[in-house]
Every structure is written in structure tokens, then in C-alpha cells.
């Protein structure tokens, strides 16, 4: 059980389902778009990401083991409730990780590449970060080990979450039964998360359970009259994987060199933050969009009258 790695076991399934999504889309049996160079970047990012964590793996493991050695409780891994508890705690931790990965630039720098494709397909799911270990977001899971969950148990649960999130990266599935959409993260919910429409920005951070978004006010349903436009607010102008992986880190470094006295803002402000407010953040884009909507609505009402 301790050597069970859901992601490694699922890798052949990833390959097979990407292949099927492409072939079935070619045959017109389902909806999917694949651009060759975009696909190459996504899959290359995924391949290299499996190596990128290795240099810091010993540090991550050591910190996890240290926390577990100093645990508050000893939780039996044979108890069913322990697995339910670790599932819920890991999933809410993932929500927190995902939210700060979008709302704080230093962590967005690591996560941005996952959102950098203008496509949304199973290949996009594999466009994973190379700099996650460096960004240090793994520290968010350490409290679970300090609480008393063994590191291997947390690792398995993280793997299950990652495998679950793979299949939601598709346009082939439109909506699932209402009860499922109410409780779980689904392709529909996650399409919203990958959209760059102002209405959809910074929404639906869920890993497995969408209930966290509903509880913490970040839920947005996919609307039939507003199709998702995928990618970044300012899309990448290159297919170079090195630029895809490191562009935001380089941009942060450039800002720090240009105006070091604003270091805290450059690092921990929201993506798009600038001292003079001349750049666009999600909040400012949403505010502009809301203002345009408000301006348009009375005009539409007058025209109708």
C-alpha cells in the first residue's frame, strides 16, 4: 500500500485517453480541438515535470518526515475514517493551494504554465509546472503530517486528487447529472476555471469537491450564453517550453531589478499588480467588465422600450 502511486499507475491511462480524444474528435464523435505545437508543448511540459521535482524531493521528504515525527496524534491508517478525513483535509488544502496559486504572483509564476494553452483538452491537463517544488507550495500539506497522517498516506491522496483532475480537462463532456455537478468538480466547472473571460476569472479552484468553492464564495457556473475563451489574460506569443515554464519568474525578476523597493508587491501582490496601478489584475478586469455591463444594461432597456 505504501508504494502505491496513483499518478504512475494512471500514466498509461493518460496516454490512451489523449489518443482516444484526438482520434474520436477526428472522426467527429466528440468535441475536441488539438493544435500540433500546442499539444507538443503541453506533453513536453508534462514529461519534464516528472523530473523537475527530483532535485528537491529529498528536502520535501525530510520536512514531511520531520513533521510526522513531531505529530500531535497517531492516526491509524487501518481506520476507514482516517481515509475519509485525509480525503477531505487534502482536498481543502488543495483548494487553498490552488487559490493562492492564482491570487499571489510568486505562486502564480509556478502555476501559470498550466493555464497557458489557448486550448482545453486532455493534453492541457498534462501541461504541469516545472517549478512547483521551488515555489514551496508543498509546505501547505505539511500540517496534515503534523496532525498525524503518515507522509505516504498524504502522498497517495494527493496522487488520487491529481488523477481525478485529469479527466475534467475536456470539452467532450458537457454537463453531468445535477447532483454530481453540485458536489464534484466537473469538466463544466473546470472549463470556467481555465477561461479568460472577466466573468470567469479566479473561479472554481476545486480539486475533487466543488463544495469548497460554494462555501468560500468562488463558485461560478458555466453559462450557456458565455462560451469559455481559454488561456491567459495576455496569452503567450511563443511555443518555446522554456519561455512557457519560466516567463513569469523572469518577469518578476525584471520588476524586482527595476523597482526593488516594491519587492513585496511584486512577489505577493496579485498577478498584474503594479505600484501605479497601470497594469491589469483580475479584480480590475472584473471591475471594468462590471462597469461595461452596467453601462450597457440601461441602454438595452431604453432600446427595448
Amino acid at each position, binding site marked *: 500500500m505504501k508504494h502505491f502511486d496513483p499518478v504512475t499507475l494512471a500514466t498509461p491511462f493518460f496516454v490512451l485517453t489523449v489518443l482516444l480524444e*484526438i482520434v474520436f474528435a477526428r472522426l467527429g464523435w466528440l468535441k475536441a480541438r488539438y493544435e*500540433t*505545437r*500546442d499539444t507538443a508543448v503541453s506533453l513536453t511540459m*508534462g514529461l519534464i515535470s*516528472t523530473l523537475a521535482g527530483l532535485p528537491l524531493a529529498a528536502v520535501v521528504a525530510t520536512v514531511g518526515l520531520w513533521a510526522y515525527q513531531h505529530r500531535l496524534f497517531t492516526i491509524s491508517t487501518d481506520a476507514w475514517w482516517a481515509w475519509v478525513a485525509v480525503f477531505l483535509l487534502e482536498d481543502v488544502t488543495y483548494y487553498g493551494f490552488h487559490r493562492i496559486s492564482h491570487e499571489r504572483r510568486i505562486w502564480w509564476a509556478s502555476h501559470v504554465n498550466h493555464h497557458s494553452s489557448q486550448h482545453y483538452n486532455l493534453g492541457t491537463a498534462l501541461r504541469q509546472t516545472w517549478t512547483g517544488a521551488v515555489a514551496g507550495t508543498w509546505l501547505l500539506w505539511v500540517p496534515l503530517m503534523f496532525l498525524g497522517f503518515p507522509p505516504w498516506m498524504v502522498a497517495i491522496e494527493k496522487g488520487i486528487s491529481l488523477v481525478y483532475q485529469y479527466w475534467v480537462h475536456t470539452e467532450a463532456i458537457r454537463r453531468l447529472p445535477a447532483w454530481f455537478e453540485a458536489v464534484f468538480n466537473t469538466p463544466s466547472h473546470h472549463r470556467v476555471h481555465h477561461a479568460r473571460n472577466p466573468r470567469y476569472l479566479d473561479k472554481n479552484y476545486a480539486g475533487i469537491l466543488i463544495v469548497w468553492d460554494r462555501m468560500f464564495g468562488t463558485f461560478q457556473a458555466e453559462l450557456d450564453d458565455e462560451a469559455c475563451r481559454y488561456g491567459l489574460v495576455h*496569452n503567450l*506569443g511563443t511555443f518555446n517550453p522554456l*519561455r512557457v515554464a519560466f516567463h513569469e519568474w523572469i518577469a518578476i525578476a525584471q520588476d524586482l531589478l527595476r523597482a526593488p523597493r516594491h519587492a513585496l508587491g511584486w512577489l505577493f501582490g496579485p498577478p498584474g499588480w503594479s505600484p501605479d496601478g497601470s497594469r491589469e489584475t483580475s479584480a480590475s478586469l472584473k471591475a471594468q467588465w462590471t462597469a*461595461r455591463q452596467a453601462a450597457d444594461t440601461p441602454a438595452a432597456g431604453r432600446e427595448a422600450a
Partner: protein
Amino acid sequence: MTYVPADASFRAVTHGLYIQLAGSAAAVAVLVAVAAWANIARSAPPLDEERAKKLLGVEFPGREVERVWVAVDGQGAVAKSGGMALVLCRLGDGFVARQIPWAQAVAATFRDGRLTIDLRDVAAPSAVISLPSWPPKSLAA
């Protein structure tokens, strides 16, 4: 219990990793080849003035476009909006948009019918747009 020397165990793990990597790399190559064969990218017709203005409206909502220069091959466009230039350039089956100071666009290199605009953005280093001439004489200042 069988004793396995540490270096032998490390070699076995490393060997397994190499096999896994080689298999994954081969799978990536096959999937990219299948994606190329399938030819299921989005339909992205070349830009004309109407399409360029529509796309500019999506990328820069609320911005007034005074004039737009569309690439002769429809693969990009430059528009003037106040003191800014709005730039569209093709990437794959989509377009990338940036805004830069108008003076920066006017000063861009134009050679052999190709305007190369340095976008000064590590995420989108430059845009190359085929135009009959540049800069526009009446708006160069």
C-alpha cells in the same frame, strides 16, 4: 530477508526511471504525431478588417480603434487607439494581443515587407506582421 546493497538498489531505481522516461518520451512523440495527422485545430481564417476589429473588441473591450492595418496575409494586425498601438499576431490556430506605446510601433523595424515589433515582453517577445509599407505617413509622429 534478502540484503540488497544500497548502490544496487539506487541503480535499480535509476534504471526504472530511465525506462519510464524513455517510454513517456516515445508516447509524447506518438501523440504529437497523431495530433498532427488528425488536423483538428480550430478553424482560424486570415484576418480582414472586420475580423481584426471584432478580435480587437474582444481583446481590448471598450477601446476605440481609430485605424487598423491588417497584414497582407491576414496573420496579424496593428491598430491605433489613442497613444497606444494594439497588436495582433497569429500563434498556432489562435491570436496573441498586446498593447504598446504608438511611438514604439512606429519605430519598429520594417524590412522586405515585414514589420518586426519588439513587444518587450518575455512572454511574447516580438510580433512579425506583413504590411505593404510602414510607418503610415500621416500618423508617424
